[in-house]
């Protein structure tokens, strides 16, 4: 079974200078160009370096062989963005982080678990037209008829070489969620699903999951599949901070039923402006969530506003902010967060830590 290809070939890449920053390349620009001597520059255009190029260089730097025969047979770390409030940047963070992980050289899978399907749309899937097999279908098949389970054909390929793949969602996910409620699916259903289909999921080095703001059974399954930390975007307005109270309650419920380690949020301030209100909100956040607050704030930036095309008929014009303008302040804040998460979650490239934890 072949994966579906969306907007392929997608030639997203960064320019030499940024590629050097991303890979922490210490040599001269000439040495850098020589490593990629096979790349030919198109006339009138900058040479760009795609995620797979960066992975190649990173693997070389880390001393790995070209193709390691033995790949880890584990489900990779799962990075979830979840808050109980809409519009604070869950999907923005999830998609942009997924793109960032890819551009840092990791094979990335992003799973959309929001019936709104905005992560899928942002990555260019037309949820209205495409025949979408979403995580709800797969979970149900896995539980009830494992013989018919076909994950490969449900996965959409966004960047070539599995650098970024997507398990999309559409509005029908809502009815799958009501099936989950009715059939009382166990807490561990998602982790069991990932575990039992290791041969597919172990080819990725990180799985990013975008959630819906509602507290559905599917969201609970996602929270039970996380190892220990979820990313909780929060904006600095009062309502959004209040919504964290709901999240704390949910975490209490989930943690109470979990085996082993508790999950805790990594509160990431999003859409921060240098205004009086925003600063006061940030102060409140810092005082409330000592130890759980990510030490940097993502600025309110235009890149994120431009992610969705304003004409409804053109989902192919949607692009995650980083992909559209990787060199802006907003994109760099996300890249910095992504690098931090690579350290925190100990993400690997072909079995070697990309950036060791500090």
């Amino acid at each position, binding site marked *: 079974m072949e994966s579906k290809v969306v907007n392929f070939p997608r030639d997203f890449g960064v320019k030499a200078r940024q590629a050097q920053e991303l890979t922490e390349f210490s040599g001269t620009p000439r040495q850098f160009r020589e490593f990629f001597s096979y790349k030919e520059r198109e006339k009138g255009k900058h040479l760009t370096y795609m995620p797979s190029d960066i992975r190649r260089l990173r693997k070389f730097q880390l001393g790995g062989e070209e193709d390691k025969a033995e790949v880890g047979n584990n489900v990779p770390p799962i990075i979830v963005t979840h808050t109980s409030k809409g519009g604070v940047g869950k999907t923005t963070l999830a998609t942009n982080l997924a793109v960032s992980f890819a551009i840092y050289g990791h094979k990335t899978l992003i799973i959309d678990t929001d019936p709104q399907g905005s992560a899928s749309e942002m990555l260019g899937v037309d949820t209205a037209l495409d025949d979408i097999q979403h995580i709800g279908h797969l979970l149900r098949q896995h539980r009830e008829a494992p013989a018919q389970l076909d994950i490969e054909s449900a996965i959409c390929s966004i960047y070539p070489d599995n650098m970024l793949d997507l398990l999309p969602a559409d509005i029908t996910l809502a009815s799958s969620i009501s099936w989950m409620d009715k059939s009382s699916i166990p807490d561990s259903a998602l982790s069991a699903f990932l575990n039992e289909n290791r041969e597919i999921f172990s080819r990725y080095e990180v799985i990013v999951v975008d959630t819906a703001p509602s507290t559905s059974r599917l969201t609970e399954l996602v929270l039970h599949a996380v190892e220990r930390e979820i990313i909780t975007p929060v904006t600095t307005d009062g309502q959004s901070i209040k919504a964290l109270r709901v999240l704390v309650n949910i975490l209490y419920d989930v943690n*109470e039923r*979990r085996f082993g380690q508790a999950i805790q949020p990594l509160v990431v301030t999003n859409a921060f402006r240098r205004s009086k209100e925003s600063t006061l909100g940030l102060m409140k956040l810092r005082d409330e969530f000592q130890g759980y607050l990510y030490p940097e704030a993502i600025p309110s930036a235009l890149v994120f506003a431009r992610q969705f095309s304003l004409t409804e008929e053109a989902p192919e014009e949607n692009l995650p902010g980083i992909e559209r303008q990787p060199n802006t302040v907003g994109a*760099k804040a996300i890249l910095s967060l992504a690098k931090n998460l690579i350290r925190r979650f100990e993400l690997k490239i072909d079995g070697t830590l990309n950036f060791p934890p500090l």
Partner: protein
Amino acid sequence: MSKKGRVKRPFNIDEILGPSESSRPGEMGRALEQAVKVAGKKRELEPKSTSTPPSAHAHAVEIPLFRLKENWDVQPRLGIDEAHVELLAQRFADSGQLTAILVRPLDETESEYEIIGGHHRYRAALQLGWKTIRCDIRRVTLEQAQLLALEDNDASLPTSDYERGRMYSRIMASSGISQGELARRIGVSRPRISQCLVFLELPPPVLEILNTNPHLLTYRHAMQLRDVFKEYGVTEDLTALAAQGLERVVNGSPAAGLHSWIKLKLTSQQKEDTPKAKNHRSVTDPSGHTAFTLRSRSAASLSVSWDGYFGVDALDVEQAVLKALQELVAKAAPSSNKESGNE
């Protein structure tokens, strides 16, 4: 910080706000700390002394049959009663499944479950070709599952004293609890447990017969049988005799008569062993009735009595009498020699 560094980290919160003053998290932060600390509380298996049974967070769920496993270590029952399965299958076909079966997840991923109670219902569902069956999931250890299985099984098809005894001893061996503690935890009296444990004092060949017929003996009969073994000692002969007696019970003779039957057999065997009994001799007619009995009460006497049957060959009687007399003489001779030697 250099200019380059600021570009890389444009929104460091401590740089924006200055160093933090408060050292304790706020109300929500404290709630969050609680939420993190609570981990696994519900998952933790029930401590021994709590009054809440493991059923406290159970809920019925439809589970596909192929995710269920049977484990005979959990089960006190020794086999499947096919007739009972038939009956259940009929009932299921008519009115569906009334009660959920009891299962426990085998691992954290809950991809497979072990049946604690409801093996017959499971078989019935298989027979009907059902895809799923309604289950009551209990997150319990093997030991707790064994206790639950005992409790659950009595409801539909009662377990025998022998099956209970086996399970009790298994639970006590695996968890190291005393009879009193076990009685308290499963809610039966202490004497009841020791009654059921009586079975395990019987020798293995006897237990083998019970394994195929667990309902054969009640604890009372087992106790009587045990007393016989206590009285006469566990010998091969006695075990064989007990096995023979049990076969009789299997074939329909009342279990209450077992121990007296064995005792009777034992005493009659002993009689045959004495020399007196050896001097018993009888002549039978062709249909097997005893016609004449020859007895020698002392070394020098032989009495012949007629038992009221005709049709015996006169020659047979003559030969029997002759033989008895010869034996008598042969026996008398060495003893008289001895006596004379003493003089």
